[in-house]
């Protein structure tokens, strides 16, 4: 077992270093062919908000050299419906489920964290900080979220300024870091409209690696989970050798489900 929340009373022990990143399997209800909960040490849900969010209009997706941009605008049915419709299933998956909270409404984190506190089937919470967030705001929000829950708290950081944020997370007693959210870009879709969002796919890995190495070098004593652009066993090994405790994959489940089983198998020892 790998402990992802060593300083948390409750802890977050996972049976494998491979984690299905935020939204990779939706709310645990969208499994690609051949991919099962048994491939993962944990899964992270699509980010939820307090109220339902319609999300972004089309175009939402555009391909880039080496990857793509996708923006959903935190499209989600709101926490009430998610908990009603999906949480009953989480206890049956046989793998810890972490609930991601939408980065666009950090003011709702304490309230949502408190509501998840006693929800059966919730093993932890993943927060994510925007590339353009204000450091002072982040400090306050993280502390409020921490006070609101005893659940393991993972914080996903934008790779472009992960280092100062990582120190804030440690100070705020977050349990683990996820590195991270790739840099934001914009590219025209077929109709000419610009799609905005973080880059994804193989293109993301070099950004992940830079930030991962920098954050690991800070020696904060928190487990660091690598995310972004991991597509094969070699990519995963590189992250683990650079100091990651676990890794998240996401778009790989969408573009090549068969590669997920190979990756999971390749990380078993």
């Amino acid at each position, binding site marked *: 077992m790998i402990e992802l929340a060593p300083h948390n009373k409750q802890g977050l022990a996972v049976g494998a270093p491979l984690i299905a990143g935020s939204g990779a*399997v*939706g709310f645990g209800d969208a499994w*690609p*062919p*051949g991919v099962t909960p048994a491939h993962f040490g944990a899964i992270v849900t699509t980010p939820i908000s307090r109220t339902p969010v319609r999300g972004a209009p089309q175009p*939402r997706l555009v391909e880039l050299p080496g990857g793509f941009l996708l923006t959903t605008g935190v*499209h989600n049915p709101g926490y009430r419906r998610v908990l009603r419709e999906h949480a009953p299933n989480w206890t049956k998956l046989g793998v810890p489920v972490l609930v991601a909270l939408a980065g666009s409404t950090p003011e709702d984190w304490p309230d949502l964290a408190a509501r998840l506190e006693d929800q059966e089937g919730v093993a932890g919470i993943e927060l994510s900080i925007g590339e353009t967030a204000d450091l002072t705001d982040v400090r306050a929000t993280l502390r409020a979220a921490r006070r609101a829950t005893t659940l393991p708290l993972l914080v996903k950081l934008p790779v472009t300024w992960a280092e100062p944020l990582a120190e804030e997370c440690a100070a705020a007693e977050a349990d683990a870091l996820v590195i991270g959210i790739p840099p934001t870009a914009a590219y025209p879709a077929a109709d000419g409209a610009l799609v905005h969002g973080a880059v994804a*796919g193989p293109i993301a890995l070099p950004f992940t690696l830079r930030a991962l190495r920098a954050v690991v070098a800070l020696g904060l004593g928190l487990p660091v989970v690598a995310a972004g652009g991991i*597509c094969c066993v070699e990519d995963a090994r590189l992250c683990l050798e650079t100091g990651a405790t676990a890794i998240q994959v996401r*778009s790989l489940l969408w573009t090549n489900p068969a590669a997920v089983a190979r990756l999971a198998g390749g990380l078993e020892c």
Partner: protein
Amino acid sequence: MLQATAELIERKAQGASQELRLHAPELARHLSPGQAVLVRAGWDLHPYLRRTFYPIAIAAETWTLRVPPSADWGHAWLRAAPPGTRLDCLGPVGHGYAAPAGVRHLLCVGEGELAWALLPAVVQADAAGLVVTLAAEGRSVRDLIPVKRLPVAVEYRVATLNGRAGHCGDLTPILAELFGWADVAFAAGSLDFYARLATAITTARFGLSAGFAQVLYTAAPLLCGTGACGACAAEIAGGRHRICRRGPVLDLADMVDQTLRVSR
């Protein structure tokens, strides 16, 4: 949905397009007319995203995709792939089309290149004994499905902008007649095309009721095909819904208000 390897067993130029017949028994068995297949084009991770195809023929052990003469790198790779190439496929995505039981007259209506996606439904309905009319419009004869590709019993009505074949212009003048005759309709084209269909149906049938016209929704890109990624969300039936779950075949009545903004 399956992830399956399909072997390219035959390639045929059809105008500037290429038709690729693929051997993939299990996938072919699961495919219904109108469902999508996501095909990896290229080697390894280049390009990273799959290309979406709506099969133009479905047989017992094979299915056929049509690669348009686009500048897309993935399409270029597929047009150049030699027989024997093994293609990694993900599909079928979503719900396909089947004419409801008891129906007698099926009208299929297509616009340009997308009309090809109607072929499996045409063939399947004809084989099931329905009376089928296919109506298609294109800029010129080259845009239209050749008549020899249709089952003999299928009536074929066409319109071309230059008037070289069928009506001169688009199908609008004959839509009222066609929709008056049909028990149900299945269409493939652009959103503008669907808006014209909706208006024509409302006129011909004094309203557009649910269940009458199904359409293939190709305007949103498919990425995961499972509902996880959110790439395919579009305005239908009073919300922003995932096409890979509710579509790609949708009831036209669910699209008029939000998607097409026409009244019915």
